[in-house]
């Protein structure tokens, strides 16, 4: 019905689509509650049995509890001054969670580079060498090296010609796979979540 409403926006299908999407959003929101209970179950067991890494589980549970406080304090019945819970909200999300997330994201580049160099030790093949050469040229081509402007040109060619061609081919194949899988879900052929 949702798909039909995009193809034939008539006969009240658009309203029906919007209503169904609202219901799906509500159900998805409830799954977040399931997720919170799951986190408490998994990490609570680790804490209670003092299994390895229990300290990290403690930090997680305490951090989760603290992060829940500002929205709870914002309930009008509790009469907490807005400036107080707004300050707590900013402290937790802007001053702790965001910088930590950015730090982790910054680490990704170094992790990938380390993995690329480790590749040469574990796999001695032309593909591995090519992978590493392309990684190095792409990284150096991004930096403003004096006398290295030609690297930027090589990087541009690598990204726009073979890289773009490969990615388009990959994404075309993925798109076809997604389409066939979606059609199979529609006709009831793909149902990993039932016994039918």
């Amino acid at each position, binding site marked *: 019905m949702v798909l039909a409403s*995009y*193809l034939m926006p008539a006969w009240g299908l658009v309203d029906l689509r919007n209503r169904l999407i609202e219901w*799906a*959003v509500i159900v*998805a929101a409830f*799954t*977040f509650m*399931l*997720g919170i209970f*799951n*986190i408490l*179950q*998994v990490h609570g*067991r680790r804490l209670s049995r003092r*299994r*390895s*890494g229990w300290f*990290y589980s403690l930090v997680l549970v305490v951090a989760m509890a603290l992060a829940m406080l500002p929205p709870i304090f914002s309930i009008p019945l509790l009469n907490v001054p807005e400036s107080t819970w707004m300050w707590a909200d900013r402290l937790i999300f802007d001053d702790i969670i965001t910088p930590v*997330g950015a730090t*982790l*994201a910054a*680490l*990704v580049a170094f*992790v*990938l580079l*380390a*993995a*690329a160099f*480790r*590749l040469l030790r*574990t*796999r001695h093949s032309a593909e*591995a060498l090519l*992978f590493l050469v392309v990684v190095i040229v792409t990284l150096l081509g991004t930096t403003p090296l004096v006398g290295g402007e030609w690297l930027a040109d090589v990087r541009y060619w690598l990204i726009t010609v073979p890289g773009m061609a490969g*990615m388009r081919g*990959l*994404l*075309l*194949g*993925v798109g*076809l*796979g*997604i*389409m*066939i*899988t*979606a*059609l*199979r*879900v529609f*006709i009831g*052929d*793909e149902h*990993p*979540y039932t*016994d039918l």
Partner: protein
Amino acid sequence: MSTDTVMASLLLGVGFIVLMGLRILRGKKGPDPMVRPLPVFQELKTEVGYAAESGGGLHIALGNGSLYGQSAITSVAALQLFSSLSDTMVAYDAPPIVTVGDPTLLPLAQDILRRTYERVGQAKLFDPRQVWFVAPSPVAYAAGAAQVSALEPISAEMVIGDFSAEVGFIGQSSMRHGISSLAAVAAPAAIGALYPATSRLAMGEEMFAGSAQVTGERRHVLALLAQDVLRLILILAILTSALLAM
């Protein structure tokens, strides 16, 4: 209707006709279509056996795809592959730890595992805590899932689903702890991040061939055949439009 909607409808219609046509014509008769073997899926059952022999478990990372976003179908494909594998894992007594980065996958993954234990008559062994919701943000999920190989007795790791470059954390952790790793991802960034970590990597559309490779069921193989037919149609359309544009 916009041009994009018309083209999408056309493609869906052609896809539906090809899929249904193959199911009707080759659904129950004719020789089994040949499927190119992919090492990552051929070695899955072997890895499960090794894990069972060594007394360790398996870590299945299903990624941060949700069931309501753009990655919904990728997540469904990952769940299908997990479902195909779960029978083997439970039969070999190699209990999996499944990590998800979106809570909409949590109940489905738990249900797949529960029904698997029920099918083999060991419903009492099912523990819903075998499925972990790690974190809703991709980087936090990757960091949390990487900890599984560090903290739990894991012998092998399977990364399937919607990931991006941060999956490098998981690959790096499994390399550091000497854990055998297999992966099936669709996103180019994830492919680039996992290529150094494992030689057993299913890239892009190969991910959707997982169920056919693991179970060998005809309906999965026919879906692959439908993909191949559509790919040929698409190639002819691109070449024709290129020739006409000259």
